[in-house]
């Protein structure tokens, strides 16, 4: 069995006198081995990893964004999604290398804290936790829109808009389920992702044939850059939230079997799969209606597209799929946020109490509440685009820094750094990945950028106050 030694020794202590938990001795295909014959079993296979990646991503890009994106960029929104996918791929490749070198829980936070030091780690780690909350709130608002559309479909007129109320309800229910439920949710997630892919493939194939005039209907003629060139980039920045899921695979890197093989495949594979789906979806949607009309349909534009093609059954299928997809994305993000809290608390950047496991259910109730509570407050704002952009901002910072961490580690080449997968095109590819990640931020709305910067600054202050003495960087 391939044993990979781990030789990073975190030191120091935080304000509460807690020290970072000891690092394991080695990593095998099946376990993470600590001293004294203590092992942590790896139980997630390639399918499970892909399901996490695709399941987290597919909710937003297809079911929430088409209307908003088409409104901003016209048919060229297709290009925006392609740009997003390219950037995600540029980051997924370096992340894969880092993940095979350090297959531990915590993902991007772990790589950056070990490669670049505690300060960067704290900013990214706390940012990841908050970023996942923003993402989760975004999915929940999307879920609210789909649930409201169900009411509209049934002809139940409500005197108020139920979007936020439903989002809050599902947010609270998800948090409660994560704390109290011990059913095998991973299998369910795999099935949900499978169903989604089947429904979408059928729907999109029909839409593609239709767009090319197979059914004898002339599509709405559309100029590609109907809104100009600049909105293509701002839209790419907005819809980048659709590509946050692959990093969630890295957050559970400590639980993936044969990490050297499965991590790169799951991360890169899920990015490629969703990029194809997104690009085709936007193309089909804009061909069916034209950007103006699509924009007016808003968050649930896809339901109208399906109705146009396949009538009521199509609309019902997409409504159902939209509910499933946004729900699974929100669920995956809450769980990842709780993993991020654990990783921070393990390293003494948050109180140890934060990752405490509930004795009755065996679940990390403090971490889940720390994720679920703020999410509700964010859902209450109901600002889809803002939530999406802040989530993207915080993730893009992490993505950029992951690429930088890779460059740093490759140059210093410490003894403990021996990834089994090496990114092609070093140093150009990770360099471009970092520049593209940071560059995309510039195209966001000023409010989102301001909120993102405040979050980073507060994270830094927290680190200085709480854990200024903690050293997490590996010997270089």
């Amino acid at each position: 069995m391939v044993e990979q030694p781990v030789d990073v020794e975190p030191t120091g202590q935080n304000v509460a006198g807690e020290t970072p938990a000891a690092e394991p001795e080695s990593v095998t295909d099946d376990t993470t081995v600590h001293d004294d014959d203590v092992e942590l079993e790896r139980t997630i296979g390639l399918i499970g990893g892909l399901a996490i990646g695709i399941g987290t991503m597919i909710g937003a890009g297809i079911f929430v964004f088409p209307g908003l994106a088409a409104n901003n960029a016209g048919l060229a929104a297709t290009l925006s999604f392609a740009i997003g996918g390219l950037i995600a791929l540029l980051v997924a490749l370096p992340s894969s290398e880092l993940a095979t070198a350090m297959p531990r829980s915590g993902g991007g936070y772990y790589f950056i804290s070990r490669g670049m030091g505690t300060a960067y780690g704290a900013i990214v780690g706390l940012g990841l936790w908050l970023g996942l909350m923003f993402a989760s709130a975004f999915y929940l608002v999307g879920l609210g829109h789909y649930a409201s559309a169900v009411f509209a479909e049934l002809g139940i007129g409500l005197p108020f808009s139920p979007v936020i109320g439903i989002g809050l309800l599902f947010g609270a229910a998800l948090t409660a389920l994560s704390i109290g439920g011990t059913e095998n949710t991973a299998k369910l997630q795999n099935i949900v992702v499978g169903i989604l892919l089947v429904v979408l493939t059928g729907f999109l194939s029909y839409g593609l044939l239709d767009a090319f005039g197979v059914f004898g209907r002339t599509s709405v003629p559309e100029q590609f850059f109907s809104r100009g060139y600049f909105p293509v980039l701002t839209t790419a920045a907005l819809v980048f939230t659709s590509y946050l899921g692959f990093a969630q695979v890295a957050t559970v890197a400590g639980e993936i079997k044969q990490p050297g093989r499965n991590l790169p495949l799951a991360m890169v594979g899920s990015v490629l799969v969703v990029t194809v789906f997104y690009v085709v979806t936007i193309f089909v949607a804009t061909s069916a209606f034209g950007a103006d009309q699509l924009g007016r349909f808003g968050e649930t534009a896809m339901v109208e597209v399906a109705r146009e093609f396949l009538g009521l059954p199509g609309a019902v299928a997409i409504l159902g799929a939209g509910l499933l997809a946004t729900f699974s994305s929100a669920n995956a993000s809450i769980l990842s946020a709780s993993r991020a809290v654990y990783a921070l608390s393990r390293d003494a950047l948050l109180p140890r109490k934060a990752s405490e496991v509930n004795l009755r259910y065996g679940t990390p109730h403090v971490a889940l509440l720390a994720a679920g509570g703020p999410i509700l407050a964010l859902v209450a704002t109901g600002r889809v685009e803002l939530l999406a952009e802040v989530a993207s901002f915080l993730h893009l910072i992490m993505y950029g820094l992951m690429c930088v961490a890779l460059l740093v580690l490759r140059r210093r080449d410490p003894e403990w750094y021996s990834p089994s997968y090496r990114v092609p095109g070093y140093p150009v590819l990770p360099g471009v990945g970092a520049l593209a990640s940071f560059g995309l931020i510039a195209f966001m709305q000023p409010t989102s950028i301001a909120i993102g910067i405040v979050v980073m600054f507060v994270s830094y202050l927290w680190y200085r106050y709480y854990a200024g003495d903690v050293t997490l960087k590996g010997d270089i």
Partner: protein
Amino acid sequence: MTDRISVLIPLRVLEGESVPEGIPDLLSNTHVVLLGYHVIPEQTAPGQAQMQFEERATARLDDYEAIFEEAGATVERRLVFTHDGQKTIDRTIHEHDCMAVLVPNAIGAVDDVLVAVRGTVGIDRLARVVAGVFGPRDTSITLYHVAETAETDEDIGTLLDGMVDRLGELGIDDARIETRVEREQDPLDAIVDAAETYDTVVMGETDPSLATFVFGMPADQVADQFLGPVLVVQREPATDDEDE
């Protein structure tokens, strides 16, 4: 010492499963692989459970290790935090070359043992486990076979004689061995019925089939109904170790 057979004892160490009375004595001639494991829900990272529970679990395993060593066994131990208990048990069996897995139940004196002999396949491992555990003590050994309708008395005789011979080679006097054959009964029910009058049972692991998928492994079913310990002899590990 090196030719001791390895027996795995899986214990859900934090859920109150402990080493029942009589087990350390039963396994005093073997190499015990003590596996303490804790199954956690998917919402929890294994490392998270480790941070909180390692100390308590280690303390318990320390106690059990001491009990087994006192009884004369050699002991190896593992503490595993896992989302999938079955995967952990299977992996440990494989990594430590365990010949048998013990389903722990309390036992008093070990006067007699029922050995379920199913067919010629895996008979060598069955014999080695019986000899390894019961060889050095004076337990009386009953070889038990539930015949299928097509089987002739001759076939059965060859099968059981072969087993007796093999045990003889391993140093067990055939005076200690009895044989019992049952016909026209469901093998599982028959074993459970017959087991009642014995102190412990040794049986083989069966191939997973649709029935085992629905009702669980036969060995587990026997263990559930029979209140004493059951030693489940593991199949020969697959020879295609492509992942090693």
